[in-house]
């Protein structure tokens, strides 16, 4: 099932963060969204997931989109004094998913009996990703899944993405690591100042990479370091 975004706009008081976004995410494809910090990537994700109000429409044929979206935040939220296993249990309970043995699902070898707050940044991300995967979602929104994660886990995440693609899921990711996007994505959307500046297929990724590289960074660095 495709996920279609039509004329999506979002403002925070007077600040327009997203302006007339139109996107089409296909089932069985990995779509990437790139852009500078503050371009609006996370806001788009939150709007699609239903964590933020917006103008426009998010169309998903099937069940209520919110109930079948797995959302991995850049910095996932955690509650203090709950263990990794309890966090996973919470996410599964929320979607009425019964899992007896979380240890066998622990592909990242996380210390599930420890409090989440004692985890490192990368471990937290891996725990949150495990939770999202256990929820049996149809659509996956992964905000910077490779960020803060070790090399070995990065390889596992890429394999997970491939597996999800095989299973015909709809996957949307963002990353600042262009090589990772190059390896995993089928199409890329370049978000600039709250609008989609360019959308390209795999054989044209270099166009976005070049555009991002040539966005006047050198002159700005020269201004900073004299």
């Amino acid at each position, binding site marked *: 099932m495709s996920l279609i975004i039509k004329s999506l706009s979002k403002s925070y008081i007077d600040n327009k963060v997203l302006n007339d976004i139109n996107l089409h995410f296909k089932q069985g494809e990995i779509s990437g969204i790139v852009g500078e910090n503050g371009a609006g990537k996370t806001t788009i994700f939150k709007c699609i*997931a*239903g*964590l933020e*109000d917006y103008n426009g429409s998010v169309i998903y044929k099937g069940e*209520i989109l*919110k*109930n079948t979206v797995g*959302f991995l*935040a850049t910095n*996932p*939220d955690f*509650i*203090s*004094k*709950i*263990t990794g*296993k*309890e*966090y996973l*249990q*919470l*996410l599964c*309970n*929320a*979607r*009425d998913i019964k899992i007896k043995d979380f240890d066998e699902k622990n592909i990242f070898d996380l210390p599930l*009996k*420890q*409090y989440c707050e*004692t985890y490192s940044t990368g471990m937290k991300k891996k725990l949150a990703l495990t939770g999202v995967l256990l*929820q049996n979602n149809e659509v996956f929104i992964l905000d910077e899944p490779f960020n803060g994660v070790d090399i070995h886990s990065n390889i596992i995440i890429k394999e997970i993405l491939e597996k999800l693609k095989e299973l015909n899921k709809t996957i949307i990711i963002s990353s600042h690591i262009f090589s990772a996007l190059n390896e995993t994505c089928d199409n890329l959307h370049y978000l600039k100042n709250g609008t989609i500046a360019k959308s390209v297929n795999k054989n044209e990724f270099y166009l976005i990479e070049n555009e991002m590289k040539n966005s006047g960074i050198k002159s700005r660095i020269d201004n900073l370091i004299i």
Partner: protein
Amino acid sequence: MKYYFKLQYKRLYRIIDSTGFNPLIGVFIGFSIFIFASNLLFDKVENAKIIYPILSLFFFGKLSGKKRNDFLKNIFNNFKYKKLRLIENLILAIPFFVFMLFKNIYINSVIFIFIALAISQFNNIASLSFVIPTPFHRKPFEFIVGFRNTFWLFPISYFITYMAITVQNFNLALFSLIIVLLTPLSFYTKPEPPFFVWIHSSNPSEFLYRKIKTAIIFSLALGFPIIISLLIFFPSNNYDIIATISILALFILVTAILGKYSFYPSETPIQLLLLISCIGFPPLIIFVLPYFYFKSNQNLKKLLK
């Protein structure tokens, strides 16, 4: 360090301002709640002279949190950090200290202020990485987190019940039951990040029903040993009191849960004010509970469909 306290003042001003209250009115309401709640405790509880200073010390826990203390240690040198923590605890202790003086509790108030200052030097106590076992692990998260934060209170309450049975003091046993049944109120005061509401694939009323059901079952489970002991060891003419207290405590708990989601994800003084009013004057629950239910149902529609 002067700038730090100036910043804290600004933060407090902004927090009250964000609730929609004029900060001066907000401070006035805050103090009114404090005086009302303190007076209520002295009016209703037999050993308030001892219980009040002990309960007051719980408010210092938040200042001893690991995250904020790590931050303070990072930006101030050791001497300044210790001095700052001492001043923080002193500022927080003053209202309780003055109230105790007002109630002519001189010795306890002096002991209280010494303890309050002393604990300013013991931080990160709550950050133990040792995982406290909990019987509620199947239903995260409020009871898991709350139980781990207040676990020591339950054996103390059970011990008070045992003592009450030994000396045949029904009121004391009833007091321990009230403590056990009202402690879960604190589990539901802080709003969780929206993500943890959003993940639920249920509509607002189903979501609230689940939360309330879990809270009632687990609260009764905690109070069960005391209720059974009371029923066994105290004569049958007390059944109605035990039932009334238990039902009332559960209604207050439900009001607290609905109150949290009525203004979610914000925290407003109105919800606290209404909750305290319900505790002080329980018939108010008849009006407040349906109001909170309707409001929370509406409010959660943003995150739950």
